[in-house]
């Protein structure tokens, strides 16, 4: 029995063209319908009334970067678990212990992260 074929995705083309059409139409319409009143002051970056200082694209806290790296790692972990979850009943207790070991290793890493204070946002 076929559980899925590429033809299943044909309706996606319709959906995609509808969505793209809506977005492009809206952006075009708003570009041409509104008035055009240019002035230098108005087109400066908004900074609550005062003149903006320097470039906006400043370096940020390294915490965001660590969050992104940890996200990638855990996301791949979750992806690994999808094929397991789908075949869960076929694999039975054997698969369960297998996955328990996998999660156990990751939770050890997670514990290390917590203890290291990487996720404490209120301190430096």
């Amino acid at each position: 029995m076929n559980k899925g074929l590429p033809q299943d995705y044909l309706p996606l083309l319709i959906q995609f063209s509808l969505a793209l059409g809506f977005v492009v139409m809206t952006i075009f319409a708003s570009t041409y319908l509104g008035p055009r009143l240019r002035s230098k002051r108005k087109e400066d970056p908004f900074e609550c009334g005062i003149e903006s200082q320097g470039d906006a694209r400043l370096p940020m806290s390294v915490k965001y970067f660590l969050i992104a790296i940890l996200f990638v790692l855990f996301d791949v972990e979750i992806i690994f678990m999808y094929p397991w979850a789908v075949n869960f009943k076929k694999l039975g207790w054997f698969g369960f212990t297998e996955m328990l070991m996998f999660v156990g290793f990751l939770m050890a890493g997670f514990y290390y992260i917590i203890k290291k204070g990487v996720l404490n946002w209120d301190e430096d």
Partner: protein
Amino acid sequence: MHFLEIIKNLSLVQWAFYFLSILTLYGALGTILSKNPIHSVIYLVVTFFSISGIYIMLNAQFLAAVNVIVYAGAIMVLFLFVLMFLNLKEESTEMKTSPMLIAAVSTGLLLGLILIATIRKAEITRVNYNDFDPNTGLIETLGMVLYKNYMLPFELVSVLFLVAMSGAILLGKREKGESHF
């Protein structure tokens, strides 16, 4: 005239394949040719997305979803974050010196050569359409193979994750009393 005939006779599958291939190449070229690194990242997302389309055409549906979620959704976000860290105003000057340029070009050529040689050497096994199981690339089959035949590599992956995690923290987390770098 001959060319037009070919275009007229393309089937839907061929249309989809050529469209996705052109989109992939466009994204890939945009990635290396655009001056702004943020634009490069966006082009790369386009490339990944169209590669996912090709996966779907091969009926590797789970792989397509993983490609979108992990590469386009997670790793590219990480890239964007990293790029937003760097000060993009400072033009990198390393690539402008001639030794660097020569090294880069020769490495690229060598890689290309190896790639072509491998493809020429490789044996492409033809699949018999009549007895090929279309469910091969689906998540159910993949799961059974991964968790029955490849149990040890799978468990080792979790060790790899552990190493990656501690490595990332070692690099990113500043200890008390450690000097800034």
